[in-house]
């Protein structure tokens, strides 16, 4: 695991070195955006690109500041979105892991439900939205359900795969020692399949995030939300607002993935360390 190695290397460094390294990384990451932004600005300023509807980055930044501070709506949009995402995603995690485990452990259930599951997996998440719009309504519940559906299938599928691949000898040994039920799940199956489950969780948050944006755009009665902000901007032709929305979507999507991934993978590394000590 690359992350593990990085972690070890970081631990050996002095705090100051660590900060320096972080700064170098941040600079390397931001440099391309600076170049692209500057050349975009210059191209628009000197009218090389004469698109009436393409604002320069400076205008987008001004709009960003306006939305954050003067109008103060961006925070509201984002917090509504994150609130929906939290509910939908947590539901997906809980039910996804439960269903995945059940399907992995019970062979008959798996043989019965795999075809339906693999059929439902191949429905694009966004295609659920029209169904939800006519069955659940045009409001919040539709968006939350779409988020749930987006994450659920990826998590359930990867949980199932992970548990199937747990070493059978370990499971048998645990059974011989009288471990079963929830305890077997928590102390053998879950640690053994955690890598695969985490893959599912990462995929799931990506799908959920996409479903969130799409669901907000398509649900008529939703008023707040980052997807809605972009969609509404079309009615007053404000391209700058759209760019701000896209920026926020991509940065927060990335942060969710990175923060969640970092934290979870640290947990697994720690768990593995614990296992090695035994």
């Amino acid at each position: 695991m690359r992350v593990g190695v990085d972690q070890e290397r970081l631990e050996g460094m002095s705090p100051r070195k660590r900060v320096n390294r972080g700064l170098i990384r941040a600079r390397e990451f931001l440099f391309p955006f600076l170049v692209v932004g500057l050349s975009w600005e210059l191209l628009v300023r000197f009218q090389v690109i004469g698109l009436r509807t393409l604002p320069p980055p400076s205008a987008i930044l001004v709009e960003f500041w306006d939305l954050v501070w003067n109008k103060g709506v961006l925070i509201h949009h984002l917090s509504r979105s994150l609130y929906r995402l939290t509910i939908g995603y947590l539901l997906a995690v809980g039910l996804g892991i439960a269903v995945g485990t059940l399907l992995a452990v019970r062979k008959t259930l798996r043989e019965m439900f795999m075809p339906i599951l693999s059929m439902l997996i191949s429905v694009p998440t966004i295609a659920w939205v029209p169904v939800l719009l006519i069955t659940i309504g045009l409001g919040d519940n539709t968006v939350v359900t779409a988020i749930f559906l987006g994450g659920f299938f990826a998590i359930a599928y990867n949980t199932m795969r992970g548990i199937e691949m747990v070493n059978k000898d370990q499971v048998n040994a645990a059974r011989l020692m009288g471990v079963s039920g929830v305890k077997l799940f928590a102390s053998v199956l879950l640690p053994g399949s955690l890598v695969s489950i985490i893959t599912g969780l990462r995929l799931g948050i990506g799908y959920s995030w996409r479903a969130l944006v799409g669901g907000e755009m398509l649900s008529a009665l939703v008023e707040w939300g980052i997807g809605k902000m972009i969609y509404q901007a079309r009615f007053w032709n404000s391209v700058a607002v759209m760019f701000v929305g896209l920026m926020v979507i991509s940065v927060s999507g990335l942060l969710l993935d990175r923060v969640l991934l970092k934290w979870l993978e640290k947990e697994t590394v720690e768990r593995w360390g614990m296992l090695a000590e035994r």
Partner: protein
Amino acid sequence: MGVSWRKPSVYVPSSDGSGGWARVRWLLPLLPIAVFLICWQVLSDANLISRSLFAAPTQVVDELVALHFRELPTRSLLLSHIAATLKRLLVASFIGILSGTLGGVFIGTRRGLYRFFDPLITLFMPIPGIALAPLFIIWLGFGDPTIIAVGSIAAFFPLVYNTAAGVRSIDPQLVRAAHIMGASRTAVLFDVYLPWAAGHVLMGVKLGLARCWRTIVAVEFVAAASWGLGYMIWDAAEYLRAGGVYGGIALLVVIYLVIEKGLVNTLEKYTVEKWGIVRR
């Protein structure tokens, strides 16, 4: 409790006397689908679930058949919708896959370029396609240009990312060996880099096609002028014709399965497996 690992499956031959059961066992997966559909049908015939929200299976079929026959002497509406979506998928995925592969090779073979573009790709890749739709509607209007543009962007990123990763994973010794033996730049590109990265590229094609398909349907919801499966579903939802919505989604699933199983797997068979570099 868990049955599957109580007896190690290795010791149990697949046909251990229970021949009759084994012969019909493959029917088991179809059973829940059939039961599900029959329950659905019976419940809605008995008016226990609303027909206008959860269209009964017969209603779905009726709706699709009606759509097919409505203007039949001149054209079939159903097939026109499907054809419109497939045409967009074809054009968008072609543009996306070609430019993505070329871009991936271009930045994958140059270290500096890769370090420059990697952050940009990391940040732009996770943007959902449908979020780009309003922007492109302003630039290109409703209809084909917007849908195809957003679809090709969706296909582009998995290709560029995976191709670059594949090209970068090549053993430098191989490239040096080829150069020493007098291979030209294009020969090295086509005979060393591409076969080596083929597994990655194909993975990218799979992901890219899937993304392209999803994005095109999604953008059709908001940007299609009058044709396309996404438009058909959206139109049915607007007028609360549940049969059309469920029928459209069923079509989405079937068409995509055909594309994936038929096209992608064949492609895999004739390229990667032939070269003997399938990673299992």
